[in-house]
């Protein structure tokens, strides 16, 4: 087992946890304000695609990252208009955003680069830099955790956000603009999720491929539920899920004497999903969502 648990595993855990931390923290702001965010996957893809294109075109990963974040914010604003202004079903609209981001980036990549849905390879020296094997985006993700904790629990904005998520009518009566705050929270979730996506295309790898998030938006959502919508447990859940993903690398080459896999990767891959179902069912503590989650707010009610 010594071959499996190595220093490399530690670094790959951090690597795989990074996009999850960004996206899950983003989802936290949206859901704490009462808006379900199934669209995390699509928001990540928007960030990943835009960052890859802009980094390739400008040879500057920071311009790429900024544009990726901008794209995430714009897409999140579209989602917010649909669910807040038009009171669309949040799950359905979020699902629509995800499908859109499966098709649109692939369509644009094919048109711009005449490819089968992926962008051009970015030169190694033009991706987000790493220091001591840790990418700058990973450091940023880790730094965001205490920052988000502070914002959520120690600032008036955080207090209002939590109030809106738990009891929007009371918050409204106290003078908080419920829908304005929700717009802000959803756009913030787009910013963070897109940063996570950008890390995938210009940090961990060096191009965008169709649907490259491969369900990470949903794993981030699972981490958020597991963490009961709190920032520090979000970090722990993301590290744990990053660890399970990191494990699949050494496991793939770890064979029994008979040549069979000691532990099929599929069994490791499903751990986050099974765990989420168990937690949701209330077997490990109770996971209580913000009270108004998924309920559009109308003043006259």
């Amino acid at each position, binding site marked *: 087992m010594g071959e499996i648990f190595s220093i490399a595993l530690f670094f790959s855990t951090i690597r795989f946890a990074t996009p999850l931390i960004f996206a899950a923290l983003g989802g936290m702001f949206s859901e704490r304000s009462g808006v379900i965010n*199934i669209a995390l996957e699509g928001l990540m893809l928007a960030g990943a695609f835009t960052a890859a294109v802009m980094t390739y075109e400008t040879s500057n990963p920071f311009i790429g990252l900024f544009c990726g974040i901008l794209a995430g914010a714009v897409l999140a604003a579209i989602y917010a208009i*649909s669910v807040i202004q*038009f*009171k*669309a*079903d949040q*799950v*359905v*609209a979020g*699902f*629509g*955003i995800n*499908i*859109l981001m*499966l*098709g*649109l980036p*692939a*369509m*644009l990549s*094919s*048109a711009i680069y005449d490819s*089968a*849905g992926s962008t051009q390879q970015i030169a190694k020296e033009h991706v987000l830099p790493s220091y001591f094997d840790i990418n700058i985006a990973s450091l940023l993700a880790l730094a965001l955790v205490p920052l988000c904790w502070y914002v959520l629990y120690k600032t008036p904005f955080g207090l209002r956000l939590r109030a809106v998520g738990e009891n929007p009518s009371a918050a409204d009566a106290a003078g908080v603009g419920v829908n304005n705050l929700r717009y802000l929270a959803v756009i913030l979730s787009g910013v963070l999720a897109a940063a996570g996506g950008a890390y995938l295309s210009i940090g961990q790898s060096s191009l965008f491929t*169709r649907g490259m998030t491969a*369900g990470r938006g*949903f794993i981030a*959502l*699972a981490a958020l*539920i597991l963490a009961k919508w709190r920032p520090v447990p979000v970090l722990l859940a993301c590290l744990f899920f990053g660890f399970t993903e990191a494990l699949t690398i050494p496991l793939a080459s770890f064979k029994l004497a008979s040549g*069979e896999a000691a532990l*099929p990767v*599929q*069994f490791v*891959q*499903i751990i986050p*999903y*099974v765990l*989420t*179902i168990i937690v*949701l*069912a*209330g077997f490990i503590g109770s996971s209580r*969502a913000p009270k108004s989650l998924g309920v559009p707010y109308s003043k006259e009610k």
Partner: protein
Amino acid sequence: MFCGTANFVKMNILREIISPLIAVIAAFIVGGIIVLLIGDSPLQTYSELIGNSFGSLNDFGYMLFYATPLIFTGLAVAVAFRCGLLNIGAEGQLYVAAFATAWVGIKFGGTMVEVGGKQENWSWASLPAILLVPLCILTAIAVGGFWGAIPGFLKAKFGSHEVINTIMLNFIAVALVSYFTQYYYRIPGDPILQTAPIGEAAHIPRISQFIPGMPDFVPLSVAFLLAIVMCVLVYIFLWKTKWGYELRAVGQNPSAAEYGGISPQKQIIIAMSISGGLAGMVAISEVLGNRYLYYHDFSGEVGFWGIAVALLGRNHPLGVFFAALFFAVLQRGGIFVDIETKYVSKDLVEVLQAIVILFVASLRLSKK
């Protein structure tokens, strides 16, 4: 007064037809703008997109072949919707159902596999078609229904949200089925992640056998006729039976239904089981009628397409049927858009689907 009621009903039907049309037209306009920006002609793109489903029996057959799984998954999502549930898990349900169906087709279909130059018997029995086909069909429905019942049970018993659980179960389904295929039912040396073929007795007839002029290679099978039958059965179930009434009552107002003596818990489990069973029927078209084996990437996200189909079809079997045909035309046309236009790829189809979903949701056409 009587006249007023008739008018009201007429208005309602009109609204049911017009509002999805608005969503479709809006999607085509937005999609057209994107095509224009990319540098192609929207007119040419859309004529490739729509025109390639009606030119010949071959085209038409392929379009109906694409429509078949969409009808099943659209019905699946619609039944759950009618009970107030959003089944995002049709994808997982049809994965496990397809694998299980192939498994039965191998184990009871007399499948022989060549391993290292020697013939190996992978089956337990070699049933005749008259037993094997019904057994495979029942397996598809039962296994899909079981996978759907899990989130139903979790919601009824623990109150956990079916959306999250179905998403999680999708990933679990794909991983489990890939595990069994990879380690137990793939022919050794096969580079493709697929099982050994099912017995010939499990094959269902293709429509081309009955229609002169339709090429044999068109994979449209009698599963399409079964899909039409299911539309009728779902309609009868939902609107002509007591069970369907109870299911819809829970969807409209769970507390009122409970007050009226209907158990929402029971209805949620029933609705999710039926929904899963319908999704599982995709296996009939795919495994028994198309590839004659379980191929791991067969789905093309048809379980997710079912959500768009149900939304556009207003969760009504007749609407689902036409919405499935509409999206099947797009899926078929996408292939030609890829080839015939200069810049636009088949991903346009997904973009259109997404815009339809967003418009239907934002115009609040979805009944929940």
